[in-house]
């Protein structure tokens, strides 16, 4: 049995949150750099250069990449040989979130959905748990902004809609989103599961590093098709026109009900702040 303490977890969460806020991950930085070679629109290139410059300033001045420092989203893999002492894991993650957003001078963006009153400390974090074998605790973190989340969609499709239906729905979602979710975007698509599960795996798909290939050949093909179609919409960086509307399309599928075909399209902005730690 490996013992991991409440404080170890909350301290790790503080590090994840404060680091992610001002350090653009390598896979995203590299992809933005590559997109400069792909983009043909002058205003698109100008936007991409400013985004790259912004990342330099954020890193050098330890300033948030974006004022929307997101809701704190976690995917936690808990090994069966891990014992957590000193409190529950949910409490420790929320404690780390509360303190991370405070010490990092990050914006607190959680509020009551009806009164709109700010909660004041960016809790509760959104946490998804998976129980795995082994003696490790793996925490994946993303600071998820509201602008791109707002343009995400879910649809309970008919099995007869098929792969073409899925592709059309994803492209249509990006067509409707246009400039709003801060393109160039990353698209996470969840196919299958049920209503809520499709959304969770769509979010999880965002965590895959840009540039990696889907092990499922059929999904890899669908990703490629959606990537091409979305970049032909014309939206471009920040919507000012161009061919770099999406940096990557990532799909996860799971079995679903024989009557259903749930599809969730989760859009992420170019400021794709994701990181992870293994305890």
């Amino acid at each position: 049995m490996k013992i991991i303490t409440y404080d170890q977890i909350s301290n790790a969460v503080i590090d994840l949150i404060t680091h992610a806020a001002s350090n653009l991950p390598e896979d995203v930085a590299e992809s933005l750099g590559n997109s400069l070679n792909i983009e043909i629109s002058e205003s698109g290139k100008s936007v991409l250069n400013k985004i790259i410059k912004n990342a330099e300033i954020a890193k050098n001045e330890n300033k948030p990449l974006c004022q929307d420092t997101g809701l704190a989203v976690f995917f936690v893999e808990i090994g069966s040989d891990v014992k957590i002492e000193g409190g529950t894991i949910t409490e420790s993650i929320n404690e780390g979130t509360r303190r991370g957003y405070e010490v990092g001078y990050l914006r607190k963006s959680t509020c009551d959905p009806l009164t709109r009153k700010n909660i004041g400390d960016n809790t509760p974090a959104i946490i998804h748990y998976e129980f795995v074998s082994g003696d490790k605790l793996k925490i994946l973190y993303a600071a998820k902004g509201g602008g791109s989340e707002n343009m995400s969609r879910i649809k309970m499709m008919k099995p007869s809609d098929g792969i073409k239906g899925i592709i059309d729905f994803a492209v249509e979602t990006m067509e409707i989103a246009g400039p709003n979710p801060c393109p160039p975007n990353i698209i996470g698509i969840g196919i299958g599961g049920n209503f809520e599960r499709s959304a969770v795996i769509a979010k999880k798909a965002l965590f895959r590093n840009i540039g990696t290939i889907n092990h499922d050949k059929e999904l890899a093909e669908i990703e490629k098709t959606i990537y091409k179609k979305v970049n032909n919409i014309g939206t471009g960086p920040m919507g000012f026109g161009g061919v770099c509307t999406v940096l990557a399309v990532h799909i996860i599928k799971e079995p679903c009900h024989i009557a259903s075909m749930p599809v969730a399209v989760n859009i992420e902005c170019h400021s794709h702040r994701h990181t992870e730690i293994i305890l």
Partner: protein
Amino acid sequence: MEFKKIKAPLTEDVIAGLKTGDEVLISGTIYTARDEAHRRLTALIFENKPLPFDIKGQIIYYVGPSPAKPGEVIGSAGPTTSYRMDKYAPVLMEYGLKGMIGKGKRSIEVKDAVKKYKAVYFGAIGGAGALIAKSIKSSKVIAYEELLSEAIRELTVEDFPAVVVNDIFGGDLYDEGKSKFAGKFK
């Protein structure tokens, strides 16, 4: 790329010279407001009460900055998505608002009001909050402090970078840009 340097507050002459796609650098005084501040401002107008600042000729920047660290003027300060303010923007333009800075598409009602009241909608780069903060030289909360990052702030800006999205001639950069590059990805 040629930049047009303009002063805030805006005059009708300046606005008449702005066209969709123009890259501008804004200097002067601008105000921040997001969802709840907009709801409150329009409520004041409907109740015939004075606004916390004279809105005539002003630019409102849709932003909720991250907290400033000690010694900083402001935290990260890029634009938020504008459509959430669409419900409120036309009445503010009717009462003298001349400019808006945000990101993303506006409603037909907002675009019509931009033409009717001779105003302008600028797009700033979302997710470039650290870069944009460099052009903000002072920041002071002037109303609704309890809204935290959503309070109304008076900002002094110098060469704030933005692009004209909707002009008084009915232009829309998002529509124009999209139709120009649709189908061009190889």
